């Protein structure tokens, strides 16, 4: 019984992804066959070539932009979260409980939807619409990251270690670089992966603030969809290409991601 449930879950999880990759290797005639083909075809190369040469989708630009945005945001979130997580977990200062509570509270607010109008006006005022910094800056901090790093540091760094470093005369920043960062490394890796995926996935704000000729990969697919709604294989080739980086990350670090999610969940 257990095996049946799990096997079924696995098939249902994997099938749409499998289907996406299959369609990327087929022609449009094959894609609308009934029943549809379930094995790879031989047209992947030509589909990719056609995707890359489609002018109005700017797919390559989208891929490059997404990489820039995701890496920048990930580095920033991890750095800022470890700094704050260190302070909240290992340092005593007035108001720390209230400030941490405030961060938790803001995690409940859907800032993306709530703040979309003023953020747009802000970007217009600064003249940043259409530029990558408009999609980078609002995501540089992440309440979830601070929370996660606070939890992680509480667990992974013994108080005695921080005390010992103090006795040896280390400054707070020195403790951060020599004691905290090495101990946090596994947690940082999980946070980095989650943030990278989340940023890579961002759709609504880039759709609003970027121009069609300078998209991120998700809005570039939306443009493909809009312009070539019936050109299925192009759409699927683009989608498959947009998911591929995430898959590589998942194959390489899947075990850590599962572990990190489970650890975070127990503590939450």
């Amino acid at each position, binding site marked *: 019984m257990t095996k049946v449930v*799990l096997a079924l879950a696995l098939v249902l999880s994997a099938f749409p992804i499998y289907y996406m990759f299959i369609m990327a290797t087929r022609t449009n005639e094959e894609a609308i066959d009934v029943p549809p083909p379930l094995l790879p075809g031989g047209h992947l190369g030509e589909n990719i070539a056609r995707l890359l040469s489609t002018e109005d989708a700017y797919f390559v630009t989208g891929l490059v932009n997404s990489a820039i945005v995701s890496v920048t945001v990930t580095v920033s979130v991890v750095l800022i979260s470890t700094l704050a997580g260190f*302070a909240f977990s290992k340092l005593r200062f007035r108001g*720390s409980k209230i400030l941490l509570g405030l961060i938790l509270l803001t995690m409940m*607010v859907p800032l993306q939807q709530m703040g979309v109008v003023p953020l747009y006006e802000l970007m217009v005022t600064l003249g940043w619409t259409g530029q990558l910094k408009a999609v980078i*800056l609002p995501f540089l901090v992440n309440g979830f990251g601070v929370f996660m790093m606070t939890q992680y540091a509480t667990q992974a760094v013994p108080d005695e270690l921080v*005390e010992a470093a103090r006795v040896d005369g280390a400054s707070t920043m020195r403790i951060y670089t020599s004691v905290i960062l090495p101990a946090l490394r596994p947690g940082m890796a999980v946070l980095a992966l989650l943030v990278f995926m989340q940023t890579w996935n961002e759709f609504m704000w880039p759709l*609003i603030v970027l121009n069609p000729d300078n998209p991120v990969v998700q809005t570039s697919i939306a443009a493909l969809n809009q312009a070539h709604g019936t050109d299925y294989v192009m759409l699927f080739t683009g989608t498959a290409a947009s998911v591929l980086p995430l898959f590589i990350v998942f194959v390489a670090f899947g075990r850590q991601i599962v572990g990190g999610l489970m650890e975070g969940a127990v503590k939450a």
Partner: protein
Amino acid sequence: MTLHVDSPAAPPRPGPRRPAGRRGPERGSGWARFDLRATPYFLISPYFLLFAIFGVFPLGYTLWVSLHEWELAGDKTLVGLDNYIELITDEAFWNAVVNTLGMFVMSTIPQLVLALLLANALNKRIRGRLFFRLGVLLPLITSVVAVAVVFTQLYGRDYGMINWFLSFFGVDAINWQNEKWSSWIAISTMIDWRWTGYNAIILLAAMQTIPKDLYEAAAIDGASPRRQFWQITIPMLRPTIIFTVFISTIGGLTLFTEPVMFDGNPTMSGGATGQYQTVAMFIVKEAFRDFDFGYAAAAAWLLFALILVGTLINYSFTRRIGGSK
């Protein structure tokens, strides 16, 4: 934010405050004292600084904009609560609210039930556990846009695999985009597909912290596995269930990408008669298609109110799970 630095003349306080620092060799030096007091604020300041600019400011400003007749680079007239009054009599807005709530309920309930079943199965002693866990997380790492593209194709009227499958059961081809109920089902399954495995993993993690002797004691008392599941597992999972419901509430009520991609065109109308337009789409449409910023801002605040109410209702509901019985 104010820095809190005690004056040097203040007498040392009794008690165990900052024991690490006071034992330090440099305890007398001004720099060490300053470092101890001020650096924590320095460490958290990047977060709060950026959050103030890109989080707090937009929220407050949205409230201000919502009280105006406000066009981009155009007229800005203070109109008080006019936008709100207009909204609560706007059928299109209520249509979006009903759609959002409908798809939220349709996606969240099966999702959590399935996730519980799946977590229970994953918790059994089986070979290849990691493989199964990775497998059910696969959908989470697929981008939402990709999910929407694939499912929209699967739900196609003429060539879609789902209609083809249903035809074996004598069901005529369904035009999934056409009706409220069918488009809600299609979009809900996209959400379920992506998030069920994630919720299962979270619930599994919590399941593993339940002490084994609880089950042993129950087994000795003659409780069946089913009874153990309902009377031990579910009540012990309550905090985690609340957490997952909470995450689903925010995600569900801000639903945007799936219905936009399902539509295929960027007008944010959610189908010919708005049958699957969500509140988030309504906001974007008012602001960036009709350039009625004040109206969109008011809708954003009503969305926030909706989320608050939804969270409270769900909280009081899930709090009772496995409570008394």
